[in-house]
């Protein structure tokens, strides 16, 4: 009798810490891969399961081993078919083929890229450069409420469309049994007997008496059937629905970006990360998210994602045109009672003189009342970043937006110069919301 031990309940993930060590080790390469994937992927699926290919550089495990080529070597193979000793086989031109039966065995992993899957958390952590994402599920966004009917038991009154057949028939069946409603088969039996007696030739008393008795029975059954109906209004049950307040599960996200010549590759990349982050936040909260891309120079237009990020436009910069375009799209397709509206705007701060005031006016009067949240980032040159740390001085657009920020709580304006700066833009918003949500609960308790 051996010693059996059931280890299945032992803690799993024994390798977890080794896995983390490995990721740390491969960090530099992973970052490259992920930066690349930001470029290649669209905003909506950037955080999907990531299969990453990491070049083996830095994570190789070198050993002394023989080179697969060179020198003289003999190797035994199996399954000879037509060779005899002395045969010569020409070598394949490049690599491949049966030549190096040895190299696979010797070098083990080879020099191919190393491919594996990152979990979502691991990806996000690398993506936002060590920013610890808070538990986003708990964040509490302000939202438009919609109502949805929810099943809530049965009722005796209602509209015929809501009749619950199963319940109704069950009640009817019970009542019919309890009140002894004659069955069709009983009636059929009596009718058959009567017919049989009637068809018999001749007359005698007993038969007439039996016939009478049967006729009486039949009449009684038929009467009873009339008194006890198949379905009585008492039986009928309706499905009951309650109107339930539901958080609206649809959101639309407007991405506004200045695409004039001053926005270079770096600026657009940062902007894309900014949009991705907002999308990630929203994705945790809403079932369905639409993304609308509006780019503007001195005029604005709605475009698809590729055009948005990768086509170049020339022209001046008039920010208010983008706001106008956004309002138009909202009016056309996204009624506020159905959609939660989020807006994210990225720009390098240039604007046509005098237009900034117009923007603030539009924000104040038209845009902000419709939006759940409006985030603006100004993308700085890295060299400028230090000069513009304090928020007072800056471009006209920046100063104008500062005003808007003071009057609207759900408006955020931030300057960013590196990917690491993006996250705090949102952190403040969600932190604030959490506080707001916490306070009333305390009051209740």
């Amino acid at each position, binding site marked *: 009798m051996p*010693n*059996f031990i059931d280890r299945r309940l032992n803690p799993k993930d024994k*390798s977890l810490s080794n896995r983390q060590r490995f990721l740390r080790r491969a960090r530099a390469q992973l970052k490259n891969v992920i930066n690349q994937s930001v470029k290649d992927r669209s905003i909506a699926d950037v955080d999907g399961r990531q299969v990453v290919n990491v070049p083996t550089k830095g994570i*190789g495990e070198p050993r002394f*081993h023989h080179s697969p080529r060179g020198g003289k*070597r003999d190797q035994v*193979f199996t399954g000879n078919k037509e060779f005899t000793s002395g045969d010569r086989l020409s070598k394949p031109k490049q690599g491949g083929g049966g030549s190096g039966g040895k190299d696979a065995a010797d070098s083990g992993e080879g020099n191919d890229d190393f491919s594996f899957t990152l979990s979502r958390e691991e990806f996000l952590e690398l993506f936002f450069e060590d920013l610890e994402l808070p538990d986003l599920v708990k964040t509490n966004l302000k939202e438009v409420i919609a109502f949805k009917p929810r099943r809530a038991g049965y009722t005796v009154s209602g509209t015929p469309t809501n009749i619950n057949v199963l319940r109704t028939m069950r009640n009817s069946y019970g009542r019919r049994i309890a009140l002894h409603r004659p069955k069709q088969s009983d009636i059929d039996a009596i009718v058959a007997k009567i017919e049989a007696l009637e068809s018999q030739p001749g007359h005698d008393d007993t038969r007439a008496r039996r016939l009478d008795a049967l006729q009486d029975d039949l009449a009684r059954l038929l009467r009873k059937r009339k008194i006890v109906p198949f379905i009585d209004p008492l039986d009928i049950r309706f499905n009951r629905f309650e109107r339930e307040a539901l958080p609206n599960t649809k959101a639309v996200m407007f991405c506004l970006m200045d695409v004039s010549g001053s926005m270079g590759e770096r600026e657009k990349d940062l902007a894309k990360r900014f949009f991705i982050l907002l999308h990630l936040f929203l994705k945790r909260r809403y079932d369905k998210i639409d993304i609308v891309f509006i780019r503007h120079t001195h005029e604005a237009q709605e475009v698809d994602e590729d055009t948005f990020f990768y086509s170049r436009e020339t022209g001046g910069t008039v920010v208010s045109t983008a706001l106008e375009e956004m309002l138009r799209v909202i009016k056309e397709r996204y009624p506020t009672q159905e959609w939660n509206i989020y807006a994210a705007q990225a720009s390098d701060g240039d604007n046509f003189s005098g237009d900034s005031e117009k923007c603030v006016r539009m924000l104040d009067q038209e845009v902000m009342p419709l939006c759940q949240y409006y985030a603006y980032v100004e993308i700085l040159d890295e060299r400028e970043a230090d000069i513009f740390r304090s928020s007072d001085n800056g471009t006209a657009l920046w100063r104008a937006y500062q005003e808007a920020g003071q009057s609207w709580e759900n408006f955020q304006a931030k300057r960013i110069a590196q990917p690491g700066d993006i996250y705090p833009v949102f952190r403040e918003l969600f932190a604030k919301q959490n506080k707001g949500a916490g306070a009333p609960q305390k009051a209740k308790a």
Partner: protein
Amino acid sequence: MAKKATKKKSSFLFEGSDWTFDTMSRTYDAIEEIAINDLGLNVYPNQIEIISSEQMLDAYSSIGMPLMYQHWSFGKHFVREEELYRKGARGLAYELVINAKPCISYHMEENTMAMQALVTAHAAFGHNHFFKNNYLFRQWTDAEAILNYMEFAKGFIAKCEERHGPAAVEEVLDAAHALMDHGVFRYRRTPRGAPHKEQMRARKRQEYEERTFNDLWRTLPSPKCGAEPSEAEVEIAKRKKSLRLPEENLLYFLEKNSPILEPWQREILHIVRKIAQYFYPQKQTKVMNEGCATFVHYYIVNKLYDQGMLTEGAMLEILHSHSSVVFQPSFDDPRYGGINPYALGFEMMQDIRRICTEPTEEDKRWLPDIAGNGDWRGTLRDAWANHRDESFIQQFLSPHLIRKMRLFVLSDSEKDDYYTVSSIHDERGYENVRRTISRNFDLGMIEPNIQVVDLDLRGDRQLCLQHIVRDGIPLAEKNRAEVLKHIRRLWGYDVSLHGVDNTSGETVYRDSTAKPEAAA
């Protein structure tokens, strides 16, 4: 035969595919009966552990040890295995067995009962017997102590990480892992005796010399007086002797002699070296170890079936997985990945059984020692105990099997643009095929021969390594440079590597960490 002793002839050990601990234990007893009393196996006590597939992945990635210190490379293997497994590109092993006392075998919970029976016979008896009896394992591994040692190692390295930081520990481990293949003793060496023993030996030697002193010897002319070695050469020889050079166990050498390592770093090298040494016998006995386990399971399940203890369904399932394990595709098959050690080992052992019981004339000529001796059990047990792959193949590969597997030798010389079929499975070729395949499985041939040959502790302290180049086969260059850097990290001073041809003695290449121009 022991067969008669079992009474429940008609009752199946189990039916259906689900296993329970009850059926497992009943099956184990039946298997043990055959293994011990029929095959005469001699095994460590067994400990069978049931694990889930995730735990199997965990075990895989830490080179099959239940306890292992932490290192990123294990994480790398883990993500790789996991990816392959998730994609369905690779199944997991049905079992994993650890050479320890008690012998631990991991069985997957997903296995059907039939598979559990197969795996029990394979691991708990086949591998177990091999571990306990093969001379390499007996000589080099200490099955009783390994788990305790690993526990110590894990704790020690964790403590080092706490004290010196994970980065510092990782650096040492990286370097040590790079040298793992060259961190083993290949031959038994006289243990360095305790000081008082050394003194005793010196005294005895002196006594002997005094006793056998003969003044006549002094009068002999000393040979070739002119070729007196120069002072420098004497110095070098002395130095080499004091450091016991040349030394092929690089990790051992660095552990003992590196001028810069701190005690904890030396201990880490020691740990890695111990583990390498522990696995060294397994690397040398792939064919035999797997062959032994496969032969044992095949014999045992057939016996069980003959005794009416296995249902036909179970037997079919077992045979199916047995035949996929010993499947050997031909060289031109896309699935060909070299010679399958399971297939070769199993076929050879089946062949030995045939030769012992019903030899042909040819067998009598080629293997006169065992042909027709009738005792195949004893013959196999003897082979399992006293051989490693290379010697086993050289000793027992019969012409019959060479023909059956249709083995042939392909020669590849760098200067020709063709391969030559130098031997095939015919009368003229048997010898060469057997010699070549045995060399193909010789670890001494597979791994490069690299030794520490010299260093000058008073000079620039450069460590000189020598690679003895066999048949002109060079080292893979990219890795070579990387590993040298690792050695430099452990040694603290520059390291150079010379490739010396084994026949001509010429230097083929030089590589060094010192300066780029020196490397040319």
